[in-house]
């Protein structure tokens, strides 16, 4: 503790300088420790470089390590002084009989990162790559990418040496480091360095059994990027990877899952695929309840990907995603998200019952997300609609304060009414929801209330008075609310022309001079239309479609054609942010999925439920309405164990999809402002 604390004043540096040059060894050592402590807290002690390296003459390994640490830190600031240490390194590498010292020297040598020093490094490094001792070899192998990064031009001979080593090396740990090191160089150079052949694959698989946990991860991670030549090869690799599912390190298990899932695509035996899925699922579920929340989080962030490509793995297992009371909120949010995705026409009751419990949680953000999830389930699954509305209405009954969850409740109810207008009758929902509209205090929830007022004006007592209240405060509202108020007021006017005449006049006067062009334009359009032909306005704002059919079932996170690339990168940072590597890192090349189609692995379909039929029917209508767009997506979701072949030009279709949606939005006029929200992540 004595080492930390005060800033090094000028005087202290001088004191250190004196101590470093003292004849007493202990004093020197203490001084070196102090120097490192200053370095840690971020003080510049580079001026002491010469004095520090002089201390290297002692054969004390602890001190040597500290000095090396110092050199690595400051070598680039003092390249000329660093040259003086080179002899020391070369001596250690060549002369020392102690493998630990040889390894330490070559490891530190590589970290100097001064281009003009690197040429002195090549020869000793070559020696170390061919050293008898595996400990030195595993260190030397990792030294090559260090040099390559700074001076790639002097490295060809080293790379050749690495390739040769890959052929003949038998130590598992060295092999694992070798693979990792060559991959690092591949990333920097952009060229392929590892040439896999049957023999090397065999060797790697053997090494997985023998090396330390990290080594197993390097090798499995690497194998996940390889495309096997045929079904036979895929089968062999999977078979050799299976035992890793029982490893105690969750990352090893997870990497094994990744390799197996990736290679499933290459198997041509459907029965085997099914059996493998049965083996993978329990391992994956164990990882989900891992007792380190951070690790659990990374796994959870990858589940949506697995769910999308392998729905079969979590069949009947929605329970594993239930939140426990003491989990951190970042875990709970992920689980909530997954529960919505995994929900289907069979298990929605179970999911909704669980979500009902979460409404009692203390954290308002979490409750808000829960409400959003309930709304999403209601909108996605027709069968769940009644139950979900009952839950939300029950919640509304107990509301006495304008809290955050209330805002979400109003927004979700608007969406539900949009999907199915008849829901206003359910459990007297309209009456109860209307009783809490005064608690709305966010633009979105206020606009939802305005929408409800306009849409259901005839069922709400004193709706005109309420609208008057809104119009009185028109200038203070957010643009979003203003736009909705315009439409809703016009709707109400058409329903009660005589009562609303002055109201609409007042609204137009205050809105026509708005600073916002959208608000202004909309005001003028309604104004003109109302004064020429109110019938046209009626068709525009009061359309009675009954149910919306184009609330699509799209809860998918990934583009289907990206699934294979995403799967290869399972566990990586990019996947954690639900992106492809090249979207997050500019230096990574876009990897094009050269598989023609993406297989989706579903369980066996049970006889269709009615809801499914209805869904299909809806989709049929959709297709007509929106022409080609949804057809492709439908096909992709078809039962996988029959290996249906979906078409491969999804990209176009998705674009069309978006365009069409946009057009649709416009056509259906302004009521759909919030509709795009449906596709957002919760």
């Amino acid at each position, binding site marked *: *503790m004595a080492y*930390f604390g005060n800033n090094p004043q000028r005087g202290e540096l001088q004191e250190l300088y004196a101590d470093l040059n003292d004849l007493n060894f202990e004093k020197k050592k203490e001084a070196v420790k102090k120097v490192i402590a200053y370095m*840690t807290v*971020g003080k510049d002690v580079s001026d002491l470089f010469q004095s520090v390296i002089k201390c290297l003459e002692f054969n*004390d*390994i*602890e001190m040597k*390590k500290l000095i090396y640490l110092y050199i690595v*830190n400051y070598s*680039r600031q003092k390249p000329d002084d660093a040259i003086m240490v080179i002899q020391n390194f070369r001596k250690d590498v060549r002369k020392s*009989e102690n*493998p*630990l010292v040889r390894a330490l020297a070559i*490891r530190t040598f590589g970290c100097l990162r001064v281009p003009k020093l690197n040429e002195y490094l090549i020869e000793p490094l070559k020696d170390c790559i061919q050293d008898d*001792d*595996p*400990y030195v070899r595993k*260190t030397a192998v990792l030294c090559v*990418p260090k040099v390559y990064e700074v001076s790639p031009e002097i490295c060809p001979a080293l790379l050749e040496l690495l390739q040769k080593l890959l052929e003949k090396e038998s*130590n598992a740990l060295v092999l694992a*480091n070798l693979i990792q090191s060559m991959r*690092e160089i591949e990333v920097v150079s952009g060229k392929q360095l590892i040439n896999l052949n049957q023999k090397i694959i065999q060797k790697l698989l053997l090494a997985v*059994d023998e*090396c*330390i946990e*990290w080594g197993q991860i390097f090798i499995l*991670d690497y194998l996940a990027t390889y495309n096997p030549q045929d079904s036979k090869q895929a089968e062999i690799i999977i078979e050799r990877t299976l035992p*890793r599912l*029982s*490893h*105690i*390190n969750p*990352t090893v298990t*997870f*990497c094994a899952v990744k390799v197996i899932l990736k290679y499933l695509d290459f198997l041509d035996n459907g029965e085997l695929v099914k059996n493998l899925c049965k083996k993978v699922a*329990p391992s994956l*579920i*164990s990882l989900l*309840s891992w007792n*380190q*929340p*951070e*690790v659990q989080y*990374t796994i959870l962030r990858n589940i949506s990907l697995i769910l999308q490509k392998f729905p079969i793995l979590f069949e009947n297992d929605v*329970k594993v995603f*239930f939140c*426990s*009371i003491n989990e951190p909120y*970042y875990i709970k949010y992920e689980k909530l998200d997954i529960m919505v995705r995994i929900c289907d026409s069979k298990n929605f009751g179970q999911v909704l019952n669980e979500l009902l*419990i979460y409404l*009692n949680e*203390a954290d308002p953000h979490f409750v808000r997300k829960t409400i959003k999830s309930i709304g999403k389930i209601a909108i996605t699954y027709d069968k769940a609609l009644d139950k979900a509305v009952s839950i939300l209405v029950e919640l509304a009954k107990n509301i*006495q*304060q304008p809290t955050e969850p209330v805002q979400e409740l109003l927004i979700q109810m608007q969406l539900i009414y949009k999907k199915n207008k008849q829901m206003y009758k359910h459990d007297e929902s309209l009456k109860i929801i209307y009783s809490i509209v005064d608690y709305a205090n966010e633009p979105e929830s206020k606009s939802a209330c305005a929408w409800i007022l306009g849409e259901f004006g005839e069922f709400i007592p004193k709706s005109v008075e309420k609208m008057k209240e809104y119009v009185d405060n028109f200038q203070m509202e957010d643009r979003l609310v203003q736009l909705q108020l315009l439409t809703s007021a016009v709707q109400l006017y058409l329903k009660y022309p005589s009562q609303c005449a002055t109201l609409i006049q007042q609204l137009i006067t205050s809105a026509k001079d708005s600073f916002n062009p959208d608000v202004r334009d909309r005001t003028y359009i309604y104004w003109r239309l109302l004064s020429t032909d109110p019938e046209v306005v009626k068709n525009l704002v009061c359309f009675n479609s009954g149910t919306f059919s184009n609330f699509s079932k799209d809860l998918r996170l990934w583009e289907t054609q990206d699934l294979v690339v995403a799967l290869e990168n399972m*566990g*990586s*940072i990019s996947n*954690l*942010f639900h992106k492809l590597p090249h979207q997050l*890192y500019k230096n990574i090349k876009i990897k094009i999925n050269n598989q023609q189609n993406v297989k989706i692995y579903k369980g066996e379909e049970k006889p269709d439920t009615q809801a499914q039929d209805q869904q299909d029917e809806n989709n049929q209508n959709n297709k007509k309405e929106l022409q080609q767009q949804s057809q492709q997506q439908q096909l992709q979701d078809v039962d996988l164990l029959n290996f249906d072949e979906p078409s491969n030009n999804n990209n176009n279709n998705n674009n069309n999809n978006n365009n069409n949606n946009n057009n649709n939005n416009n056509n259906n006029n302004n009521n759909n402002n919030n509709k795009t929200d449906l596709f957002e992540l919760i």
Partner: protein
Amino acid sequence: MISSIVFINHKGEILIYRVYKDDITRSETTQFCAKIVATKENKECPIINIDGTSFIHITIKDIVVLATTKVNVNVAMTLQFLYQLVKVCRAYFGGEFDENCIKKHFVLIYEILDEVMDYGVPQIADADLLKKYIQEGGLKPELMNDVEKLKQLTSQATGATSWRPPNLVYRKNEVYLDVIESVNVLMSVKGTILKADVAGSIQVKCLLSGMPECKFGMNDKLLMQREPRKPGQTTTDKGITIDDLKFHQCVKLPKFDKERAITFIPPDGQFELMTYRITENINLPFKIMPVYNELGKNKLEIRVKIKSIFEKNLFATNLAIKIPVPKNTANVSTNSAIGKAKHEPDQQGVIWRIKKYPGDFEALLRCEIDLGQTTNQQPWIKPPISMEFQVPMFTASGLRVRFLRIYEKAGYKPTKWIRYITKAGEYLHRL
């Protein structure tokens, strides 16, 4: 891979700072310390991305252990490595890991960091192994000059059995097995089981000479089906279904995958041989039966009956049942035949403690709760009742160790000891 490893205290001050690649500047890290650690935002998510730099971190008590990177690393591995690093430090500092001991041993920590990671790639990070060649105050000079010993050391470290040093000798060969199960249960208000599982762990303390090969057997259904029945033997024990098993690195996984046999050469001393997860046919040791009544506006009554469901000759110990009470609780009067129940305001609940509790036994606690006045109109959100306990010589899953066979060249007969214990994990009953 990883660019740097940093230890930070809760104020956002850097304690240890080790750079492996120089694509990161110190100011980026200090920014993270100031913005994230000092504001406690790090509690919100284990990975934070700021301008292309990813900050992956775990928090151990007050210390944030951070790995930074600019490339697309395997996050799960990085997190696991950080946990392993903390484990190694604890092994060196006698189980401690706090600001004081980090500052005291910073030289040693730098030495460890130099060894467990190279160029941002995780290397040997096994505490027992590291202790062989990294020691506080440097290694003994005898070792540094004994080339034969050093060779043996590096070949162990890089070999296939890195966890066990050769040539161990014990005068008395002994093995201790501990089967520890935690039961996680969530029961609904009506008492139906919503979720139940057992997370088990088998801890081994191994004091054996030489290079013993061990074979371990449990009443695992899948294994027992494979075994040929001995003629004349009629056994009713069909074994139990284990959902998933995870093994220590010493267990030969391919052999388990093929034959479901658990074979291994154990490390020396204490280690966790395996963990397992079971969801079928769980024997819950306790049943909780709560009754909740509102007696008027300012009075509540909660009655909790518990029943032990294990054999009479067994005992549970250290029971603690936590019954939640509202925030505005003014006074609680409790009444029970055994144990002590007390309102503990800081826990927002009544804690009912019982030292020793026999099998097949029922006990009742009655709490009358007087509520104070409150301005908060929100109805009380009732958290679940939770329970802690230990039941020695009982396994909730029904798991039994059937044999542990040990083969060693010397042919010694080791003494074997075994203990079972079941503990409460998250044992919850909704109120």
